[in-house]
Each structure stands twice: as structure tokens, then as C-alpha cells.
């Protein structure tokens, strides 16, 4: 059954998928920072309010991934911000997160050398969002 995007249940499912991933476990070894994803509102896409995904990632595992406000996500060590439809493209693998950042489609705040060192981990994190069915608000 599909899970509604950017909800508590979706965040929990993502956490499970990340913790099942051996690729992530290896690629993110040594990572010890929080990551916030800010999903900006797009009312015309049936996504009326911004949301934040707060990811407590530590040494190859997801200790916690929870839904919060955009402000909660902005308090993380690394913050990636994009409108809802961009995140949807990323989660459907229509937009590579690295390319998105190079093109400014995803805006990154945080220490650049660190995030570049963990490019593979961030790619696998994206792939984890595709391992379960998602119900997208604009497709309802």
C-alpha cells in the first residue's frame, strides 16, 4: 500500500529502508551530522504548507527520521531546500540529487567538503525513497 509523501509514516518507512541498506551503511560510515530536508509548499500541487524532514543519521545508520516543520529542518547541520515538486522528482529518480545541487535546483547549506565526501551516501539515501510506494499529494 502506498504511503502519503512527507508524513510521519513516510518518514518511518524511509528510516527502515535506510537501515536495511548495506550500501548506505558502508558509504555513510563516519557520518555524524543531522540533515534537514525542507519541502517548500506548492499550493497548486496540493501541497499547501512547507514541511521539514529531520534526519538523525549516525555512522551508517538512521537513528531517527521524523517529520517536523521547515524551521525544525533548518536547525540541522546540513539543510537541503527545494519545492515539493523538485523533491518528488528526486524521489522518483527523475532528478539526481547531486546534479540538482550543482544546478541550484536543490539548495544546500552546510560544510561543502563534508557533503562532497559523502556523495555516495546521499545518492543511496535518495534511492531508499524509491524502495516503497509513495502516494503523492498532486496525484490524488
Amino acid at each position, binding site marked *: 500500500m502506498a504511503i502519503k509523501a512527507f508524513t510521519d509514516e513516510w518518514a518511518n518507512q524511509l528510516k527502515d529502508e535506510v537501515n536495511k541498506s548495506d550500501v548506505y551503511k558502508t558509504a555513510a560510515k563516519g557520518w555524524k551530522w543531522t540533515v534537514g530536508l525542507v519541502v517548500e509548499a506548492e499550493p497548486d500541487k496540493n501541497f499547501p504548507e512547507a514541511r521539514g524532514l529531520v534526519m538523525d543519521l549516525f555512522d551508517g545508520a538512521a537513528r531517527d527520521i521524523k517529520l517536523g516543520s521547515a524551521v525544525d529542518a533548518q536547525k540541522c547541520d546540513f539543510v537541503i531546500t527545494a519545492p515539493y515538486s523538485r523533491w518528488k522528482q528526486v524521489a522518483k529518480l527523475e532528478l*539526481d540529487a*547531486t*546534479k540538482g*545541487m*550543482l*544546478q*541550484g*535546483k536543490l*539548495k*544546500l547549506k552546510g*560544510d*561543502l*567538503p*563534508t557533503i*562532497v*565526501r559523502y*556523495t555516495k551516501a546521499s545518492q543511496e539515501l535518495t534511492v531508499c525513497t524509491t524502495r516503497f510506494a509513495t502516494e503523492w499529494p498532486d496525484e490524488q
Partner: protein
Amino acid sequence: MVEYASKEPSAFAEMLGGLIGANVTARPEKKRDFDTLVARVGIWVTDIDEGVTLAFDAGKLTVYNGLEPDRTITIRAEAETVMSLSNLKIGLFGMPVYYDKVGRGVAAKLVQGKLKIDGMLQNIATLNRVTRIFSVQ
């Protein structure tokens, strides 16, 4: 230390400028390379059709949107390969390591023609120095 030629630098320009600035600030060995490097390095990312020119001038870097003339070296590759270049480890005598997984991947792209470096043979020392400054490892 890092300046942008355009009032509106591209996201790619800001990312590379930010990356090099952070590297040089945090690592004295990279700062030494940065302070002596004089070269104009073009980087073109083939799968997003965007590029920059990094004009190093002995302790100062100007980042241009797009490819500017008179480049010493020009690197052309897909985004993933460009990111791999910044993940090359630096080994003995400050040489990039091409025998680990990342290094072998980069070398393979070079052999396959998926990574093209114009001016490489004439400027191998400059390329190694740029790689050291660019690498986050």
C-alpha cells in the same frame, strides 16, 4: 580568497568556489598549493551543460560562470565523475591515488573517454596541484 566574476554566480560556480575556499581554509597543505598556483582551469559538466573557469592567481581564485579563454587545463565529465575527482585521495609525494576504488573509477573514465582533460600532458604538475586543492580527502 575566492571571488566571483559575475554578480550572479551559477550554483555550480558557488559550489566549487565554496568547496575550494573551505578546503584551503581548513587544510594548510592545500593552502600552500593554493598560494603558489597560477593557472586557469575549466570544468565542464557534460550532463548538465554547465561549467566554470577557475582562475588561480597565487593565493586568489576568481570563479567565472562558463568557460573563459586561455585555459591551462579543461576538464569535461559528467557530474558524478567531477564529484569523484574531488574524492580522490592524495598519497605519497602529494600524488593523487589512482589505485583505490575511487581512483580506479576515475582512471577508467579517462581511458573510456568519459573524462576528458585538455592540456593534461603538458600540465601534469598543475593538474596534480589542482586535484590536491579540489580534493576533500
